[in-house]
């Protein structure tokens, strides 16, 4: 029971402990103390998650830092947590954004502060739980639990239509997760006793919800079972991503949520959908995945172009960013369902990138929202004159978002498109049009907010970003440049985990990589070092 075996538990439950401390030990009038505790706890959690980056060994076993404990033996549910390269990156993203979310809320939230920070910390535990769970029951518990604090964050501290948005978010996600539960149960029964009532045969193994156990039967599951389970999972995950046409809860939730809520929502919550696909759908249901490729890719590509087009028509900054997320997440899905190492690596990297750049965009929008209490683009204009530092930070994040080389977005989109292109020229061609559209709507937004004369008198006295606001953004910008300039460590940590997925979902690729890649590749290898 060393530090390493308990590390994931510690990372996951430190925010919960912090929440309990605030609930029981701090009075609600002591707002400074609440903020201090929340900040320290979130910061500590980030620091605690850093060893994952340094200690996780890409050459080691598939899942590391594992911790297993009996939980509900009667049904075969275990408390099993562990991480691979994919979840390590997502955990780090979560703890970083979690800290930034807390730190960015100091002046934005002025009522019911105690509950606010409690919910923020609870949310963090829920999200981390999702990324570390290797047991379906545990996963499902965290998946559902996370909804609650998010629901309250939107419903209590949100904008004018907060209740509509909160309930829509809640019910939509719930609808998906119920289907997902059905899928989980089907797998569970197929692995064990079968289910006579619906004519589902069983393999007769000991009943278990342990994902690593279920991975072992992935290739034995008959196609029609895979199909139905895939469909059930698909609805659950696709809503969360969100994929076209299940995306309309997203703009509402984003627009109404407080800034920190939007940051978490875009940065982490959406990744749970894509994470679900890569962790469960692909390796558990390889046959169905392969058959689903054209359909999923079609939706992904529609999402890419359609999201960009709808973003272009928005008058509300947050809505614009929300629809840009639909487009970016379409890229993530496209890369994933290219089912080759390039596409999958780019896909995971783009999850991180989107968290950084879109998280950053929501923070930036929040900064002016706090000053002017409006998100309407037409209310701004000429801000570059009064807020030069803000304008510069916004420019960097904008460029990250539209995939300018030396910034993170380019690396993600590039590898995704390489993967997609290797599958189908048409996919890549259609998806790549969003490079033009993306530059169009983002730069147009930038122009309307920052360039031209100042047309509203209220804007003439706007204060530039303060030090705290700068520090919410600087870590994100540093990471954007890091991934953009030297992404090698990220590729390295992902490589074996991605390879394992490809080995299952497209064994032919790994057995005959030479069929997919031209002769010159080995020469390029030889040049290394």
């Amino acid at each position, binding site marked *: 029971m060393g530090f390493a075996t*308990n590390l994931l*538990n510690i990372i996951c439950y430190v925010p*919960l402990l912090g929440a309990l401390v605030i609930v029981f030990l701090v009075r609600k009038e002591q707002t400074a103390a609440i903020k201090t505790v929340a900040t320290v706890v979130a910061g500590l959690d980030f620091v605690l998650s850093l060893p994952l980056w340094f200690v996780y060994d890409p050459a080691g076993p598939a899942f590391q830092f594992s*911790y297993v*404990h*009996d939980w*509900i033996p009667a049904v075969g549910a275990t*408390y099993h947590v562990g991480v691979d390269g994919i979840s390590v990156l997502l955990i780090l993203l979560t703890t970083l954004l979690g800290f930034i979310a807390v730190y960015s809320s100091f002046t934005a939230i002025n009522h019911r502060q105690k509950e606010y920070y409690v919910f923020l910390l609870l949310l963090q*535990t829920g999200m981390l739980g999702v990324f570390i769970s290797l047991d379906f029951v545990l996963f499902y518990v965290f998946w559902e*639990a996370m909804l*609650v604090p998010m629901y309250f964050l939107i419903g209590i501290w949100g904008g004018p239509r907060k209740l509509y948005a909160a309930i*829509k978010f809640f*019910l939509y996600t*719930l609808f998906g997760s119920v289907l997902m*539960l059905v899928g989980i*149960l089907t797998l569970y029964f197929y692995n064990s006793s079968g289910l006579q009532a619906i004519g589902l045969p069983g393999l007769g193994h000991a009943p278990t919800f342990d994902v690593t156990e279920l991975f072992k039967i992935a290739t034995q599951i008959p196609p029609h079972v895979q199909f139905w389970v895939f469909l059930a999972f698909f609805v659950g995950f696709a809503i969360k991503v969100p994929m076209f046409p299940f995306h*309309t*809860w997203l703009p509402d939730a984003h627009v109404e949520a407080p800034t920190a809520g939007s940051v978490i929502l875009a940065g982490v919550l959406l990744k749970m959908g894509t994470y679900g696909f890569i962790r469960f759908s692909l390796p558990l249901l390889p046959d169905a995945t392969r058959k689903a490729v054209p359909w999923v890719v079609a939706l992904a590509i529609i999402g890419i172009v*359609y999201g960009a*087009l*709808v*973003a*272009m*028509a928005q008058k509300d900054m947050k809505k614009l960013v929300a629809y840009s997320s639909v487009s970016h997440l379409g890229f993530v899905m496209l890369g994933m369902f290219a089912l*080759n*190492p*390039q596409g999958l690596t*780019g896909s995971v990297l783009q999850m991180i990138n989107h968290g950084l750049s879109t998280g950053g965009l929501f923070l930036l929008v929040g900064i002016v929202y706090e000053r002017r209490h409006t998100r309407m683009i037409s209310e701004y204009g000429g801000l*570059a004159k009064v807020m030069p530092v803000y304008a510069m930070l916004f420019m960097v994040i904008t460029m990250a978002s539209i995939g*300018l*080389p*030396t910034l993170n977005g*380019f690396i993600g989109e*590039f*590898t995704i498109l390489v*993967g997609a*292109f*290797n599958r189908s020229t048409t996919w890549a*061609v259609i998806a790549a049009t969003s*490079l*033009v*559209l993306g*530059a*169009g709507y983002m*730069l147009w937004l930038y*122009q309307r907010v920052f*360039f*031209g*004369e100042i047309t509203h008198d209220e804007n003439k006295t706007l204060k530039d970003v303060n030090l705290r606001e700068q520090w919410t953004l600087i870590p994100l910008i540093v990471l954007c440049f890091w991934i953009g300039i*030297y992404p*090698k460590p990220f*590729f390295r940590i992902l490589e074996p985990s991605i390879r394992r997925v490809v080995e299952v979902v497209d064994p032919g690729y790994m057995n005959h*990589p030479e069929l997919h*890649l*031209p002769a*010159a*590749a080995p020469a*390029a*290898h030889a040049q*290394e070092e």
Partner: protein
Amino acid sequence: MLELLWLVPALPLAGAIVLLSGALRFGKRATTLVGVGSIGLTLAVVVTVLAQYAGRHGEIVVNQVFRWISAGAINVDFALRLDPLSAVMLSFVTLVGFIIHVYSTGYMHSEGDRAYARFFAYLNLFMFAMLTLVLGANLVVLFIGWEGVGLCSYLLIGFYFDKEYCANAGIKAFVVNRIGDFGFLLAIFWALRVFGTVDFTGMADALAADPTRYAAAVTPIALLLFVGAVGKSAQLPLYVWLPDAMAGPTPVSALIHAATMVTAGVYMVARTNFFFRLSPVAMLVVALVGGLTAVFAATIGLAQNDIKKVLAYSTVSQLGYMFLAAGAGAFAGGMFHVFTHAFFKACLFLGAGSVIHACSGEQDMRKMGGLKAHMPTTYWTFVVATLALAGIPPFAGFFSKDEILGKVFAAASGNLNGFGAVYAVLWVLGLAGAFMTAFYMFRAVHMTFHGEFRGSHEQAHHLHESPRSMTVPLQVLAVGSVAAGFLGMGMFGPRVNWFERLLHPVAATVEVEGHHVGAGLEWSLIALSVAVALSGIWFATRWYFGPQAFTRPRRFAERFPGLYATVANKYYVDEAYNATAVAGTMKLAQASWEFDARVIDGTVNGARHLTVGTSFFSGLFDLNVVDGLVNLVAAAYGCASRALRRVQWGVVQGYALVMTVGFVLMVAAALWLGR
């Protein structure tokens, strides 16, 4: 010293970072020191590197800085490459870049400290990106620079961002360029798929070893690369951003939108000539687009009154000549024009800047005139550069333009790739373009410097020669506009054509089989093109010089009002694009948005109403079916399923409460268990 190649892009980058990080505090002196100093150092490094490289006889030196992208079996290195082609680019980009930095200290002096620092930060950043583009050893590194120069171009066009038209021009440049980049990126993907590498050496070697194996991929890759070049180098049909880009400060127009960035497309085609030379179709397309652009833009230049717009259309036109050369297989010839053009066009733009500076910001040539007396240095340098552009011997443009026309003629008479007739037409167009070039340039000289001053009294009072920080760069560039041409005197035979010989190892001219233009014919062609240029000058002088100035053009405009209006309004291409592509996209965006709000979200809301309306039945369903299933699992799910049922009744808070409590309990249990 060659190991220090990375310093070449790194120094300007360092300058940009320092300036950006201190942008709000730097005074002008500190900014000048950092901004110009970094480029001065870069120039020193480049001179040393090239001096050393001169002894290497065209060898290819590749410095791998670090591995950049590695996904699956695909690897892309951040690597720099020095070979004759990049050495040529390196030399004039750094030299002209440095000169323009010096000039800018004078030109931008009246700006505030903050704007001054921002200007030099962007200019340094541009140099970093441009040098990365030039030195990139593979398509992706080249693409980093390619996008980087695009960003800087955007930032600098929109430098006066409070002016609406500047900001608009910036976006237009960025987005139109992205259309080209779309093609470029697809070419990169295609190359990666076929070759597994985007390294220039790797691809060239693979093609040389087994051309038939890659035959199917060569033409699409070449054409897609050319789409990128068309965007960056402002060719038909994507040229529209460049004239608008003149909204930026004039040194920017000189550096980015005349001498360096816009020639990146030509450089890229020369860089990847191993694709183009294998694809007759791609070569033909390059030549056609180049030739047509050369003439098309020249005609627009005939009727522009803004001095910078004349130069902008002239740039588009000259870039067309460079592509025409490349399309005729004369990659070195195209690059030679890139080289000479950098000097005389930068000189012209900086001269125009000097004029604008003197006329208190006036750019309309109709309100100028007679400036010769007030600013002699600007005048003489401008005339030298104009003669170079017009192709009058012995100025630089004469040699490079003649080289291009000669090679196109050779392609026509030697029936290159069986398209001899097309090349013949292009040669005639090229000659016609040369006539127009001479005409519109001397029109500009006459309108600006000769005759009487036509501006306001206030402006007249203010007329003055520019400070030395601006005139010395003009003089240096004027010298370059003469000297640069002697490096490639093709008419004296290949032995004297040092430039072509230099580039031969990496960008050899495509041989036209069994054909040789004899010396007599060669000199006749030269005489013809000089005669054409001189007649252009003669016409311009008759129309715009002396006591009769302006009467003939006025009469012409009155006699052909439709033709004149069409040309003066640039064939209404911008209007057509706005009405189709731009308006179409906006309409599609609006329609998508309405579809999203009405249909998709309408369906979701409809489902909500339906659910609420039938909640009684769904409650029953929930109890019997979903619960029935769930209860099989464990008692632990009981509370969740009851909550589900309550949700269907619309009381979410209740469910949430139960979930929270349950969640906390479960976590507590897990913690307790996992002690």
